[in-house]
Structure formats: C-alpha cells, structure tokens
C-alpha cells in the first residue's frame, strides 16, 4: 500500500468516525443530563428505536426533514415522560424500569414498522453539507481539512454543537445548578425550595428527547432507512459512555469519538478482509465498553444520588 492511499484510508476512517459519533453523542449527552439530575435512564435504546421510526416515518410521508427531527424529539419526550412517571413518581428500581422501557420501545417500533410500512424503504435524509462558496470551490474539497471538518450533515454538526451548549447550561446557569443539586444532594436542594421532582422530570424528558433525535440521526441522517432493532446496542453503549466520560459533556465527547472511531475501524477491517474474523471485530466496541467501565479514574465524580428515588422526609 502506497503512502498516499494509506493517508487516504486514515482520513476516511477519521471522517467516518466523526460521522458515526452522531447518534452516540445525542444519546450520551442526553443521558448525561438525566444522570446529573440523579436518574439512571437505561431505556435509551428503546427511546432511540421509537425516535428512529417516528423520524423516518415523518420524512417518508412528508419529505420534510425538520418535521422528522421534530417527530423524533416529541416521541422521545413522551417516552421520557413515561420513564419519569415510573422512575421518579413511582420510585421504580431504575435499572429494571429502563429494561421495561427498552422492551416497550423495541416492541412498539417494530410493531409500527410492520403495520405502517411493512418493507424497508429508503428516504432522502439529511444531505452532507459541502460548504460550497462558489460553483467550483467547496470547503469540503480542501485536502485533509476538508475531509476532517466538512462534508457532514446538519444533524452531525448539531450533535457536536450540543457539547458546549450542555456544558454551559450545566455549569454556568441556574438551571444547571438545580440539575446538579438534585442529582447530588436532593435533600439539600429540597430544603432550599428546589422542586426535586420537577427538575428530574424536566431533565429526564430533555435527555429522552435527545435520545429520540439520536435515533432519527440514524434513520434520516446516517443510514436513511428504518430497520427493526437498527440501533444495535448504541443506546446501551451511550449510557456506558456517560460513566466513561465522568458525567461531563467533554468527557462524553471523547468517549463518543473513541467508540465511533473503533466502529469505523471495525467496518474497515471487515471491508479489507483482514486476518481478524469479522465476527470478533464486531465484538470490539462492547469489549471496549467493559474495559472502559473498569477503569478506576474519576469515579468519585458520580452524582451522589444517582439511581436513588427521592422522597421527602424519609431520609
């Protein structure tokens, strides 16, 4: 392999990795908000599936991409409401209620797909933006820089934009302070007049809304089809990414890039038919997740009340 093609392949993997990070980012940043407020929402995978279907269906019927994102966001919000009622109001064990939400989303999205579409159909999803300044000059055509920074969809740019926005909201606004307070010490927050329930509901629902968009970023951004179980574990990995990123948007960004990079690498391994059996290459991201979870660094940053329901006056 000549040096030039090697660089080409490397740039290709980087481009692909940045692209593939999109659903991980939406889902994991959403989950960060939820977990910072103290709620472990394991249902992300199910919410993503519902978001993927509703986003796809809206675009399939109307061709309007924004409507697709809106549909996915609204469905995500509703799934978040369900999760909130069960986990916040009814104090359910969050790991188990999340599995319930996952199963519901899995079953319902497949059911809707089978009854409303029936077959796998393509749609015209978000186009790659090439940033053309004139007829023959596009920023995406610049060597190296063009490959790395340009040529993604609006949804992908939105995902990366979300990182500083959520960082700013969490760390520099009153809202963020409230979210962190109810996640870390709900009793103290409550005694200061913050409604723990309201803040948690809002956080879980916004997080779930982003999970819905994460699903749409697959079905109308990256792949432009809907298939049953198309999220393929991304939602669960996204939950793990929040741990990996120590509950910080920037850490989550690093994790998302790492995982998407591994996925891109693994696709490439399958394409060039390396000696590694492809079945084992597919395993890599999951293995990496477990290793990442076992790393001891910065676990002390975990929100103090993560996964613990709050009730006033019960200690």
């Amino acid at each position: 392999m000549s040096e030039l093609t090697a660089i080409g392949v490397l740039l290709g993997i980087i481009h692909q990795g940045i692209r593939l990070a999109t659903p991980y980012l939406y889902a994991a940043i959403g989950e960060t908000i939820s977990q910072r407020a103290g709620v472990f929402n394991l249902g992300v995978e199910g919410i993503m599936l519902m978001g993927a279907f509703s986003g796809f269906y809206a675009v399939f019927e109307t061709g309007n991409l924004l409507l697709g994102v809106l549909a996915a966001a609204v469905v995500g919000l509703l799934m978040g409401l369900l999760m909130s009622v069960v986990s916040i109001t009814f104090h359910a064990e969050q790991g188990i209620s999340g599995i319930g939400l996952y199963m519901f989303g899995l079953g319902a999205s497949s059911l809707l797909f089978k009854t409303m579409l029936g077959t796998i159909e393509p749609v015209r999803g978000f186009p790659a933006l090439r940033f053309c300044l004139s007829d023959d000059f596009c920023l995406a055509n610049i060597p190296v820089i063009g490959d790395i920074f340009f040529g993604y969809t609006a949804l992908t740019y939105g995902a990366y934009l979300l990182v500083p926005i959520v960082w700013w909201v969490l760390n520099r606004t009153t809202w963020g302070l409230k979210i962190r307070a109810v996640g870390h010490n709900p009793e103290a927050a409550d005694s200061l007049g913050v409604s723990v329930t309201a803040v948690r509901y809002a956080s879980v629902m916004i997080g779930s809304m982003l999970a819905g968009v994460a699903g749409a970023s697959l079905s109308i951004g990256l792949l432009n089809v809907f298939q049953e179980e198309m999220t393929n574990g991304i939602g669960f990995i996204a939950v793990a990414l929040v741990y990996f990123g120590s509950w910080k948007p920037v850490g989550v960004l690093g994790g998302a890039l790492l995982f998407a990079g591994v996925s891109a690498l693994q696709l490439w391994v399958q394409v060039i038919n390396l000696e590694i059996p492809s079945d084992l290459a597919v395993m890599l991201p999951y293995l990496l997740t477990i290793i990442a979870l076992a790393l001891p660094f910065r676990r002390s940053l975990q929100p103090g009340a993560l996964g613990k329901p709050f009730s006033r006056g019960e200690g």
Partner: protein
Amino acid sequence: MARLVDGLVPVVAVLFAFLVGAIILWLQGVSPVEAYRQMIVGAFGTKNGLADTLVKAIPLMLVGLGIAIAFRGGVINIGAEGQMIVGALLTTFVGVQLAEGISPVVGISVAILAGALMGAIWGAIPGYLKARLGVNEILSTIMMNQIAIQIGYYLLRGPMIDPAEVAAGTNIPQSARLGRAFDVPRFTDLARWLGLDRSAADLGLDGFLGEIYAVLVEPSRLHSGLIFAIIMAVLVYILLWRTTLGYRIRAVGLSRSASEYAGIPVRRTIVLSMTFSGLFAGLAGAVEILGLHHRMFEPAAVSAGYGFTGIVAALFGKLHPLGIIPSSVLFGGLLVGGDKMQRAMQIPQVLITAILGLVVLFVVSTDYLVRRRVARRLAAQRSAAELASKEELVGSTVQEAGS
C-alpha cells in the same frame, strides 16, 4: 386481607398492560377481544398449544430462577441472554464431541454440567468486576450479551460449523446434531416407558382432562426439561431460604452496609449471586439444546429473548422460586399465544414484546405502592404500640403519685 390485596397488585399491573395492548390493537383496527381470545385459545386451549406453552416455560423458569437469585442479592443481571448462549455453546460442543459410545445418563449429565459451568463463568465475570472494580453490572452484562452473540457466530461459522454445511457449500452457521444419547426424553417417551400408550381419544377422555392427558402422553415437543426446571425451582427455594449462602445473598440484597457490619463477606456474596444467576441461565441454554433444538444455530435465535422475558417472569413471580413456576407458564403462554395471534389475525408478534415491556414498567411501579402500604401499616402498628406504652407509663405515674 391487606396481604391479599398486595398479592393481587402484580396481576392488576399485567391486566393494565393488556389494556394498553388492547388500545393499540383497537387503533390498528383489530378487535382486541377476538385477538386476545385467539391468544388464550392458542396458548392453552389445544393440546399442541399447551405443549408449546410448557416448552417455552422451561427456559423462562430456569432464567427466571437465576434472575431471582441476582435480584434478591441486590445485583441486576441483564446478561441471561449471553449466559444462555455460552451455556448452549459448551453443551453443544460436548454433545457433538462425545457423540459416539456414551450412555445417555452420563452424556446428558456431563452436557448439562458443561452448560451450567459456562453460564456460571459468564455470570461470575460481571459479578467480579462489580465487586472488585465497581463496574456497573447492568451495563457490563448487556455488553457481555453482545460479546456472547459474536463469539457464537464466530464458533458456528468456524470451529463448530456442521461439516455437512461446509460439504454442501451452504455454510449456514450451525453446529452438527448432537449424539442421540444426548436427547433429553420427551414426555411421550416417559409415558411409553411407564406403559401408557393409549391416546386420550382411546380412553374416551375429553375436555380439559383429556387435553392434559394428551399433553403428557401423546407425542408432542414437551420434554422432561420441565420436570428438571421444577426441581431446580425447589432447589433454589432451599438455597435462598435454608442455607447460609442464601441468607447472605438476601441480607446483602436488603442492605449492603448492614451486611458488612454483620460480618458478611459482601463482595464474595455479590460474586456468588451473579455466578449462580449465570449458572441457571446457562442451564436454560443447555436444556434448550438437549431437549428441543439438538443442535446450536444462530445464537440470538437460541436465546430468543428468554433472557429478557425471564426477567418479566421473575418479577411477576415476586422473585420467589415457587412463584416463578406458574409465572413462567403464563408468560410462555403469552409467547405462544402471540405467535398464534400473528398467524390467525396478521397482528405482528412483536406486540408481545411491547406488552412485556409495559408489564415490567407497571410491576416495578406498583411495587412502590405495595411497599408504601406495608410501611404505612407498620407505622400505624408502631404508633399504636407507642400510644399503648405511653398510656401504661401515664397509668404507672398516676399510681406512683397515689401511693
């Protein structure tokens, strides 16, 4: 009376889930009454339906028992799918390798132990990671599921592939058939050995009695794994309530700090609850291969979602081994009924997955209501007792003053 109400709560939760299912059906323009009738008749009303229901209850029961052990120990095992798969893989390996010249008793025992061992290892790994490194077991077990599926594909496409598939050039990822010595006897085989060879019609049995007789005696897929699973349920009951280990598992599940204070080795207990949990899921995989499939194929089709449905069965059985027996039959029936409904009315079977998800959500929600009722009852008793003791105190002070 109050306890009876508490016991009925999960039933109400399930009814509620079916109500939502009915609304979904109605929105699809299907009569919910007719759909549910098809389901119930399909699952319980015919000989073959009932036999299939019981066949599906076997892995649900074994997985559910494992789930109950973990949940009782305060760890959440979402990895039963993977544990089933690796168990099934090692059982298959043993059954294919030792195909010739082995007695059924030895063969089946070794193959079952192999599956149990492999499942136990697959459960012990996340257990150890949790106890030693604080790795969230929910996430690690989910990842272990995916890893098990991929290992399964790798083995079934490579080292374990059926030579006949390679020879024919079809290369379907499945193993060779296990030796005949590894076939767990079906109920009809057992009945023949006992000398029961007349059909229900011959004996003039009809109605429900005839159906039960037919399921037990006439040829069907029902295999003696059912008896095995029921024995296992009793053993898990003994494990949890009659042994030191079981006591420790339950204590750690109720409060880790109190258990630590009481001198219970908390970390070891966590590893052991996950190990036993995986062991039973591994057993489920082994029994599916030996009793039903007789060869290993697509990993996720062998585990077939039992790892998740088993959670539902365990929760509905109130995490009690003996409650899990009827609960598994109920949810086995739901799976079979869903299949029948799909065939009769073209309603996709995935509706069942959605309903199962709702059952989980409703059961864990109502659990809180029950706990709160119990807490209120205890508080009421306590304040009554306090009141009584205060009155005594007042009484005695009055007496003292009087003397």
